[in-house]
């Protein structure tokens, strides 16, 4: 590359400084506020905590039933992830290994669901859940099951897309060899394709878990006090008189840190799928 001109260098450095400050400011506030006592948070903003304390990390569990929200979120996100990745693997297998009527329509239909505004199917889905509830006794509204079923579909477009592209890179020679050995379709999937696709499956799982973990709209309508997830539960720190901002920040940190770390550690795997489609 050409050596930079001074003007270009100034532009480049300014951009990076501005972006770093913009990105970091909320993150810094989040961390510093989480270690301040409430009195200090309420007496006006200060960047540096003068009396750092870890109390908020202890108190946050008793101000609201955070542990319950946390367990709900873990259960919902984990079950939704396992099921949705399994469903996506089967669908991606069909799309990548067979030419069949409706193949393109299926891919398009799945992709198009990403365009649907959540509010559009929130109410009908809610009513559908009520109907199923009445007809079969399977509780879908106010239960974790309903959330799991909903979240299952959210990661499907990305997961199927990513798995199809990966399966297509696995040479057909392997398939043919396995078929000659008398391997059926199910065994081929489990013995040939899945072991090779392990990194993609991890990436897809993290992505799917993230979607379920962060979802707010459906969680706010489909859960009750017992089944509430952290995405909605965090708002309950705003009491009538006080907002426990230090505890809100501490709780936000604790519930986000694992997922952010997982994403950052696996960023190359996860983002390669997001960008591959567009760059192609």
């Amino acid at each position, binding site marked *: *590359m*050409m050596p*930079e001109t001074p*003007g*270009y260098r100034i*532009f480049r450095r300014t951009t*990076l400084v501005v972006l770093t400050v913009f*990105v970091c400011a*909320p993150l810094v506030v989040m961390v510093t506020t989480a270690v301040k006592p409430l009195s200090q948070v309420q007496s*006006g903003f200060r960047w540096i905590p003068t009396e750092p304390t870890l109390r908020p990390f202890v108190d946050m569990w008793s101000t609201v039933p955070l542990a319950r929200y946390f367990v709900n979120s873990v259960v919902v996100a984990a079950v939704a992830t396992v099921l949705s990745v*399994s469903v*996506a693997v*089967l*669908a991606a297998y*069909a799309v990548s290994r*067979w*030419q*069949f009527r409706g193949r393109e329509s*299926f891919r398009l*239909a*799945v992709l198009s*669901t990403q*365009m*649907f*505004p959540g*509010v*559009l*199917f929130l*109410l*009908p889905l809610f009513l559908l859940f*009520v109907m199923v509830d009445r007809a079969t006794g399977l509780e879908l509204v106010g239960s974790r099951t309903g959330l799991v*079923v*909903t979240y299952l579909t959210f990661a*499907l477009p990305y997961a199927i897309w990513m798995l199809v592209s990966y399966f297509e890179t696995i040479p057909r020679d392997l398939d*043919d060899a396995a078929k000659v050995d*008398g391997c*059926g*379709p*199910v065994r081929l999937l489990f013995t040939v394709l899945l072991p090779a696709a392990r990194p993609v499956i991890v990436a897809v799982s993290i992505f799917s878990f*993230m979607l379920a*973990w962060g979802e*707010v*709209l459906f969680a*706010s309508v489909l859960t009750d006090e017992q089944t509430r997830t952290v*995405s909605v539960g965090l*708002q309950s720190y705003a009491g009538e008189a006080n907002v426990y*901002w230090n505890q*809100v*920040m501490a709780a*936000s940190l604790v519930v*986000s840190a694992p*997922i*952010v770390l997982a*994403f950052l550690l696996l960023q190359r795997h996860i*983002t390669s799928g*997001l*960008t*591959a489609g*567009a*760059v192609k």
Partner: protein
Amino acid sequence: MSTSTERGRAGAAPPGAGPAGPARRKPDSARRTAWRRRTPYLFLIPALLLELFVHFGPMLAGVVMSVLKLTQYQLARWWEAPWAGLDNYQVMLDVDQPTGASLLHSFLVTTGFTVIVVAVSWGLGVAGAISLQRMRAGRGTLRTLFLVPYALPVFAAVITWRFLLQRDNGMLNHVLSDQLGLLDGNAFYLIGGNSFWSLCVVTIWREWPFAFLMIMAALQSIPDDVYEASGMDGAGPWRQLRSITLPMIAPVNQVLILVLALRTFRDFETPYVLFGGSAPDAARLISVEIYQNSFQTFNFGLGSAMSVLLLVFLMLLTGVYLTATRRRA
């Protein structure tokens, strides 16, 4: 086709496997049926059922509801609600009535919001990506840092911003009035006219890393020798940016801007967490408008009609955009 797969398989079968005794033929034909034409559909069934149950079924039901006079009293047996024909559509499109005026207002707010958020997010994404492109040390660290807003769950990110934007003990007022002395006294950011800009800034904070990520990937696909060749011809960095980088990332921009626009236009979670349920007028996005009509005033028929309108609008927008950008390309 699956038939060709079968033929290929039969051809590749070891000699002697075919004319075997009846005992061997049975598992062989069973295996062959397993690779039949029907097989892919079996693997698709779970995904299809889920999509039908969660997306397509409810969407059709939503279209039906939009022509009903549906309130909370008929929810249990919604299909028996009185027929409303196109009344709901008429009500919401009549801009002289409060409902129509309010919808139009939120549509305009959403349009302005989308244009600003997409333009700035894209700009920041490009600026960030090309600035990192020439960096040697610390590139990976900054890239990772810039991705944090994208990885952070929306509720945690937006609730932090909500604290930052508090009037009395928030960070922004502290910086602007106490530290820089730009403001006389503290401003409100979460009510009144400022709330629109707050919503824009918070959404840009969350969205720009996605643009950055896509453009970074696009930049990596530009071979270095293109830059080297143009450098030898005497092109400086600005010239290279204009004549090489920007044209080369154009195809990515086409998809990126569409995805950003669709996501921003139907955003619900940012205003919902930032303002807590009732968004101020200046920042009432169309999704919030629909949510309030459905779940706060319980006029579900009207809410459904608005949702249908929103979907039709997004589909039209996508169609027009793709046609326009393809023709140019």
